[in-house]
């Protein structure tokens, strides 16, 4: 494909000098060339170090323009002053004006893109805040879900430490991102998660039992115990099954969104990912596809500062993620991910735009991974404890939202005590049951590779059953084996062995606990 493209671009290059006479002038007079002193040019050519402004003045833009979701288009402003309007290249994709000024586009804007927020750290509404109203019912539900997620994380994390599950990933510090974004969506919107968004699933009705079953990999796990803990999924809740590879869900989300658009559904696709994902090729593929295909998809980036042990400074040199959208023709917003109201408002509005205008929207939520990357990680080895503490305490999203809910008179201390004890109780019961539920049986190794069992897998299942029969001590005793196999034609001297396995594995064998013989 490269060949054909090259050939095509070569003809364009050959044509360019003819089309752009002032290029030649520039080559010869570059020494005397100087930049225009206009403000727009100096902005454009700024070579100073990028200033990383803190959150002191970022809201002006949104207050002054209530239609704040319209992207801030720096480039538009920069290319109007001295462009040669009457001369332009009639180029595929639209006319491009000529200019005699040799201007390079700056690698970054002078100021970082501001971060939209509604609540300050004390849970007070920021004055003039422009946000979507949240009812009492919704507000309380959001808060209780955030608390449930918090408790889930701490109990399951502890469970892993006790060795009762093999692995866990917490969403600590990202509760607002999880729950508020989920709350702003409809149940028909299709979620393509990464793995730190269990709150979205919780919001949609995945029960504590469902979570516990997946973590235990028992027979009630939808994934039949085949994936590591936290790889949840539920087609009925419009939540795609989690896979470990990073960013692979993004181009799929564009496809899902396209399908929703084709069906004229009042729904969009929503895909979550972290800051590290934006370095993957799939991220770029997805944004470009979504823009070109005009797919109603929300790309929700949880920029939590850390991709395992890689900080954002070592991940990219752009102003975060939100600016990348513009490169693909995608509208975007940066939002305070620890402000549930801001996340709710941004997602709510993004969803409306995505569906009614058939376009992708990029949301960058600034948050912090307050926990370790996973139970296999110790983040104190690569980041200062005071940084973690600051985000855990001062910028805690759950506390901040709680203050707001309390100020509204929607929530009291006794509600809090009641909620926490009831969730914990339910959770412990769910774990108790899940732990006792038997594992999926052996045939589930072979099912679902294809929709039907092919002969090679049938053959391998027979061999495996024979191996289990010969060496039962090699295999976990809590995995039952039930599939009944029709007799197969084998030499008689072997037949006895195989059939004895089959009969052991027949449905008449009662329950997994009695099956100690294998």
């Amino acid at each position: 494909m490269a060949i054909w493209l090259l050939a095509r671009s070569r003809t364009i290059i050959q044509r360019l000098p003819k089309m752009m006479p002032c290029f030649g002038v520039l080559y010869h007079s570059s020494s005397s060339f100087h930049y225009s002193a206009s403000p727009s040019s100096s902005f454009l050519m700024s070579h100073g170090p990028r200033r990383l402004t803190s959150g002191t003045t970022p809201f002006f833009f949104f207050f002054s323009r209530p239609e704040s979701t319209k992207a801030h288009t720096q480039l538009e402003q920069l290319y109007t002053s001295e462009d040669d309007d009457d001369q332009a290249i009639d180029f595929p994709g639209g006319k491009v004006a000529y200019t005699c000024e040799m201007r390079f586009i700056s690698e970054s804007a002078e100021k970082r893109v501001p971060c939209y927020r509604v609540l300050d750290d004390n849970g007070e509404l920021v004055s003039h805040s422009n946000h979507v109203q949240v009812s009492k019912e919704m507000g309380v539900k959001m808060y209780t879900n955030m608390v449930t997620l918090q408790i889930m994380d701490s109990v399951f994390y502890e469970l892993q430490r006790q060795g009762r599950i093999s692995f866990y990933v917490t969403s600590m510090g990202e509760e607002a991102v999880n729950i508020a974004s989920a709350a702003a969506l409809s149940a028909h919107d299709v979620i393509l998660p990464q793995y730190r968004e269990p709150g979205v699933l919780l919001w949609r009705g995945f029960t504590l039992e469902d979570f516990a079953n997946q973590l235990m990999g028992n027979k009630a796990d939808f994934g039949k115990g085949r994936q590591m803990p936290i790889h949840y999924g539920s087609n009925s809740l419009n939540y795609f099954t989690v896979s470990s590879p990073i960013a692979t869900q993004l181009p799929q989300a564009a496809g899902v969104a396209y399908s929703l658009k084709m069906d004229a559904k009042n729904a969009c696709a929503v895909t979550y990912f972290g800051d590290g994902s934006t370095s993957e090729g799939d991220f770029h593929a997805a944004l470009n596809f979504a823009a070109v295909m005009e797919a109603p998809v929300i790309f929700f980036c949880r920029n939590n500062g850390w991709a395992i042990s890689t900080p954002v400074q070592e991940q990219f040199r752009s102003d975060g993620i939100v600016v990348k959208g513009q490169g693909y023709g995608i509208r975007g917003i940066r939002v305070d991910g620890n402000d549930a109201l801001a996340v709710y408002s941004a997602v709510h509005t993004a969803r409306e735009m995505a569906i009614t205008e058939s376009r992708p929207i990029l949301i960058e939520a600034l948050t912090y991974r307050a926990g370790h990357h996973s139970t296999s990680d110790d983040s104190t080895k690569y980041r200062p404890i005071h940084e973690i503490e600051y985000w855990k305490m001062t910028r805690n999203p759950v506390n901040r939202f709680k203050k707001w809910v309390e100020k509204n008179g929607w929530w009291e201390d006794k509600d809090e005590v009641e909620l926490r004890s009831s969730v914990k109780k339910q959770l412990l019961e769910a774990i108790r049951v899940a732990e006792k539920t038997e594992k999926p049986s052996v045939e589930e190794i072979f099912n679902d590779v294809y929709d039907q069992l092919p002969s090679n897998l049938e053959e391998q299942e027979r061999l495996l059953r024979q191996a289990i029969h010969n060496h039962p001590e090699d295999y976990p005793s809590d995995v039952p084996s039930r599939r009944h196999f029709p007799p197969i034609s084998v030499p008689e001297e072997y037949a006895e062995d195989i059939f004895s396995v089959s009969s052991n594995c027949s449905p008449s064998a009662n329950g997994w606990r009695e099956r100690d013989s294998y």
Partner: protein
Amino acid sequence: MSASLRRFGRWVSLASKREFSNFSCIEKGAEGSWKSLNLYSAINQALHIAMESDPRALMLAFPVPLGRLAERFGKNRVFNTPLCEQGIVGFGIGLAAMGNRAIAEIQFADYIYPAFDQIVNEAAKFRYRSGNQFNCLTIRAPYGAVGHGGHYHSQSPEAFFCHVPGIKVVIPRSPRQAKGLLLSCIRDPNPVVFFEPKWLYRLAVEEVPEDDYMLPLSDAEVLREGSDITLVGWGAQLSIMEQACLDAEKANKQVSKLSTQKFLVGTWVWTIGTRKHRKDGISCELIDLRTLIPWDKDTVEASVKKTGRLLISHEAPVTGGFGAEISASIVERCFLRPAMDMAQFLASCNMMSAESNFPLTCNGHGSVFGILQHDLEAPITRICGLDTPFPLVFEPFYMPTKNKILDAIKSTVGY
């Protein structure tokens, strides 16, 4: 299927000396009229039928194939994508998971690698990891040598995908096969990689039923019956193999065939040799595997048990090619087998002694002996591409040509 490919097709038909003969195989389920079509048109026809018969069928490719398809079904259902293979496959997976029949095209199999992660880690595991909650897509890609394709327009990457549980790999050999198999692949709920022999797009012409018909997947087809050696291949290579079969049949009448059978009697091994001077050339059985994974081992096994010899041929490099898998599987199944009961053994002894140069008599102690017989009378042979990148001007040297195959047939039969 781009303009460039159309160019390919024309060059091929002018430059190639490769001949394709139509196999006289039968197709099921096609009652109506038949029309002479090349492989390109047969695939086009299959796509039209797939799109027409299922309103949820969608096609995506860079660049968009077949202008008439887009005209007929609209640009919403047949669309151009940006130039990004992982995007095409990922987007297609998303479509398929939403209940659409997504048909994604990669311009050349040589460019499928950027999508490898999406195919291997996503498409292949979508059903399994979710516990059967989602279906998947079909990916088409032209593969194989074309006479002048060099490194990046000639590769046969099928073996990579045959190592991935959850994927099906299908390669048609002719227009009629292509149409029926492609329709099966599109309608199969599993992810299928469908490699099209681009050499044959214009070159292969045969009568194709106009109707909608499907050919079974994971079902090999015996194209020619024979008794001396089994040849297994797929796609464009079959036409080369068929020529080798024809030549083997008529050419070498001087091949001397030593037929041996070993009998294990107690702790003794008896070897009975029969040297036959063939008068009628070598009779080759030719099998089109059609689906490479999950593949039809039984058909190949049955054939090898009949002929006692196996030759596999593919364009891809020999090391780690799918021929290695076939070879290993057939050795597992055909190296030794319990041959017959005693009565058969005795009958066989009488027959052999009558035929052979070494008269043999058996007395009846057989009931206490185990009797085993070799199915394989010669080592399995692979005639494949060289273990090099696909070399442009050296293509005639690289390829598993007819005479390489013919020589291997002779030496295997004469082993």
